[in-house]
């Protein structure tokens, strides 16, 4: 796919200059190099890497325990009393809560996207590959699901499932299924009539082999793009659910939960809502930039 380089091997070339040219060409065609040449994508990658770093090493980086309260130090402004981002209504260190919040928010966003991707990709593959009645049934159900505003569907699912990290992942995942199904189905339609699929059919390959070995592999690039962009919107979804009081359970720190607490103390301690929102914004921006960058690598025609 994207890693494809010229067919000639370096050994076949005696000339050193040719070898150098070949190397350069390989680099130019390498997906990673294409991505890192795009300045915006690199910015996105740095932001995402930073946030993931915070999430993974939260216990090592946090200056305080995110849940330890300090009633003598409530609503400390940023920079006061050794709290870089200040404290919240229980005197908990906001910086530590935000670092741990990265863990929960990114975990939920990626988890929810994976759930949606697995189910959606399978449905999209089946619908696109078999067509006919199966396709109609699956896609009408997807259309029906898409008719519910995303946040409303997630809201109802949370009411059914009850609060909690795992349930947020399920709710976001289910609400994401139709989008993935559509993306994959559209791509399968393009791929399934390609020459190599017909060739497989001629030599008598089983439908399963064609579907999973060839169509799946070649329909993946838009899914990867959509997956990355979807993490961005899943971060917002998590925050929205927590903001409406239907997300993770307190005292768990997720960015949405912190922002929701900040809403009620907007007048007395505006730093809580402001800072937590900035982290959400930055992370979403990071995933969006990265997703756009990956799209440009896979599909240079669509460059914006």
């Amino acid at each position: 796919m994207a890693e494809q380089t010229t067919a000639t091997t370096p050994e076949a070339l005696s000339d050193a200059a040719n070898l150098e040219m070949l190397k350069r060409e390989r680099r130019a065609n390498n997906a990673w190099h294409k991505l890192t040449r795009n300045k915006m994508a690199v910015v996105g990658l740095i932001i995402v890497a930073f946030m993931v770093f915070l999430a993974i090493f939260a216990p090592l980086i946090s200056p305080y325990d995110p849940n330890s309260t300090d009633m003598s130090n409530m609503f400390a402004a940023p920079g006061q009393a050794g709290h870089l981002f200040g404290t919240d209504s229980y005197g908990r260190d906001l910086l530590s809560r935000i670092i741990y919040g990265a863990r929960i928010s990114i975990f939920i966003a990626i988890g929810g996207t994976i759930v949606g991707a697995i189910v959606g990709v399978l449905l999209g593959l089946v619908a696109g590959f078999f067509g006919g009645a199966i396709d109609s049934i699956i896609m009408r159900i997807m259309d029906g699901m898409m008719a519910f505003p995303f946040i409303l569907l997630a809201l109802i699912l949370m009411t059914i499932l009850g609060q909690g990290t795992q349930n947020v992942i399920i709710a976001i995942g289910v609400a994401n299924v139709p989008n993935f199904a559509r993306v994959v189905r559209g791509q399968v339609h393009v791929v399934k009539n390609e020459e190599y699929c017909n060739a497989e059919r001629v030599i008598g390959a089983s439908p399963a082999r064609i579907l999973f070995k060839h169509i799946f592999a070649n329909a993946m690039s838009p899914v990867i793009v959509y997956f990355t962009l979807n993490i961005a919107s899943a971060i917002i979804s998590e925050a929205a659910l927590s903001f409406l009081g239907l997300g993770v359970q307190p005292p768990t720190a997720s960015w949405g939960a912190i922002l929701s607490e900040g809403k009620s103390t907007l007048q007395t301690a505006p730093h809580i809502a402001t800072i937590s929102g900035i982290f959400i914004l930055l992370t979403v921006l990071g995933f969006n930039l990265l997703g756009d960058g990956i799209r440009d690598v896979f599909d240079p025609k669509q460059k914006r």
Partner: protein
Amino acid sequence: MAKTIIRRALQTIPVLLVVVTFTFVLTRMIPGDPAVIMLGPQASPDAIETMREKMGLNEPMLQQYVNYVLGVLQGDFGYSYSYNGAVMPIILSRLPSTLMITITGLVLAILVGIPIGVESAVKQNTAFDYIFMVLALVGVSMPIFWLGLMLVLTFSVNLGWLPVMGMGNIAKGAWDVISHMILPCLCLATIPAATFARITRSSMLESINADYVKALRSRGIKESVVIWKHAFKNALPPIVTVLGIQLAGAFAGAILTETIFSWPGLGTLIVNAVNGRDYALIQGVVLFSAVVFVFVNLIVDIVYMLINPKVSYEGGAR
């Protein structure tokens, strides 16, 4: 053309059926006994049993489903216990205030986003282009509820210019209502404006470099005519698609925006219904918004076909 439109319209029937079924199944899955919630925890078992009977909850699930579908077809969305009234009139009474801010917000977004997109395309790779595209990128990455809170913080808490809660009273003059509308509308307009700016720019870049634009320019036609009358017209289809998506998705934004500004519309209605476990009301608002979505989509697709006859709807494009 008429045939394609009819075929597209017929596609909505199975979708609507799925929507109704989904709404029914989802609301039945919400834990708790609607009769108990309606009567309160102190109610006697007898009273609960009578209420269950009255609400039709003792009938087989399939029968309940059939009754529900038949009711919906006649415009009967059930009875809300927390508002003490039929669901449909409650929804219709809240609808205008939601439309007021969503439509104003969307119009604002179009008026700001599209010209910025066109200008950015015309001035590609200039400072104007860079600044606005970075702003647009930040705009599409922004959580709407955070934006709302920041607007409140800036214009109400810090500057004290605008009110935060409710929708004002028309008896106190038009300004009272308008001043209450400004922040919710700004909140709802920002993200769509950023989206419009981005899609307009990329679509315009394509049409601006087409041969017919060069031909028009070489004939000495005024630049503004070339851009707005010809290039823009050809850049329109993807913009209409995005407009449709924004229009249909406006309700999602309204849920969060209304919550922040205590705006008495459908958004606050559904949040209250969820918090109060008012099953009939949840069911009603969910179904209503989904049905509106389906019809908005239908209209957008028809408009799309009319402005872009190349599109065929064999099995649904998009």
